[in-house]
């Protein structure tokens, strides 16, 4: 069994304040380093970092800034299953039509419109709570290993193209 760093609050949590797009890189890098430190495969760490970057960018572009938090969590149902919980919160205008915003290619900012749908695919768990009064709160989790491939270590080379996403 691999030795896990204790997911204590001190080493297991990081907060980032995002005001402009220039703040995004630090949190994406932080997410990637945290995941790699926890023994995530390169691909899974990169998935987390990319999703983090997408959601943090949205904070800067659409919500006038906000907070990103990364927590190391343990699956209460499964011993030794650790993951990174991503919390992204803002007090911006909220997302009026969530289904539309989650559609590939929909953007009110003349961008690609793949941030939200892409991030939700890259993460194992993904939920959004949004309202015009309270802004937008997103919670997402990336587990260190996909649920359906139990103990076998995942190759860090991207040799296998097998899907690594798991059913929720």
């Amino acid at each position, binding site marked *: 069994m691999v030795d896990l760093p204790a997911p204590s609050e001190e080493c297991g949590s990081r907060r980032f304040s995002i005001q402009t797009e220039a703040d*995004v890189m630090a949190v994406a890098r932080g997410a*990637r380093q945290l995941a790699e430190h926890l023994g995530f495969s390169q691909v899974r760490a990169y*998935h987390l970092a990319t999703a983090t970057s*997408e959601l943090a*960018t949205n904070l800067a572009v659409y919500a006038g800034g906000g907070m990103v938090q990364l927590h190391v969590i343990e699956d209460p149902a499964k011993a030794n299953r650790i993951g990174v919980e991503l919390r992204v919160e803002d007090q911006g205008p909220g997302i009026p039509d969530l289904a539309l915003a989650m559609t590939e290619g929909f953007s009110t900012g003349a961008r690609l419109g*793949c941030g939200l749908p*892409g991030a939700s695919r890259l993460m194992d768990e993904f939920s959004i709570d949004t309202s015009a009064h309270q802004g937008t709160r997103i919670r997402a989790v990336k587990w260190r290993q996909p649920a359906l491939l139990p103990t076998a270590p995942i190759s860090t080379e991207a*040799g296998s193209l097998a899907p690594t996403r798991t059913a929720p």
Partner: protein
Amino acid sequence: MKIPILRLGRILLASIQEDLTDTEAMQFQSDLVNEVAEIEALGVAVDITALDVVDSYMARVINDTASMVRLLGAEVVICGVQPFVAMTLIEMGRDLIGADCTFNLDQGLEQLKTRIASRGDIRFAGDEDE
């Protein structure tokens, strides 16, 4: 941050080290396009090895840059797309990067030379140094 553009014969090489802001991206694109026009570049290699994350914003910047270069008639290749980056981009959106990608710079330059050669442009000499 200004992105240096290196010249290897009639190939240009630009290495993006960090996420670019909108302004920096526009500066880079105009620098690159001017340089392509000025030396009548036959190919451009854009190296993204050093980027921490290629998200949809950077993918768009890279794509726009590639289209501009192609409009000027030069070949373009995006280098430094590691397998885990490619896998993530596919998951994000199928056509996120429309240009040809290679794993490293060497392969990128090889690919440019092959493509330029197949265009039958005899002016190109890969080892020419100026």
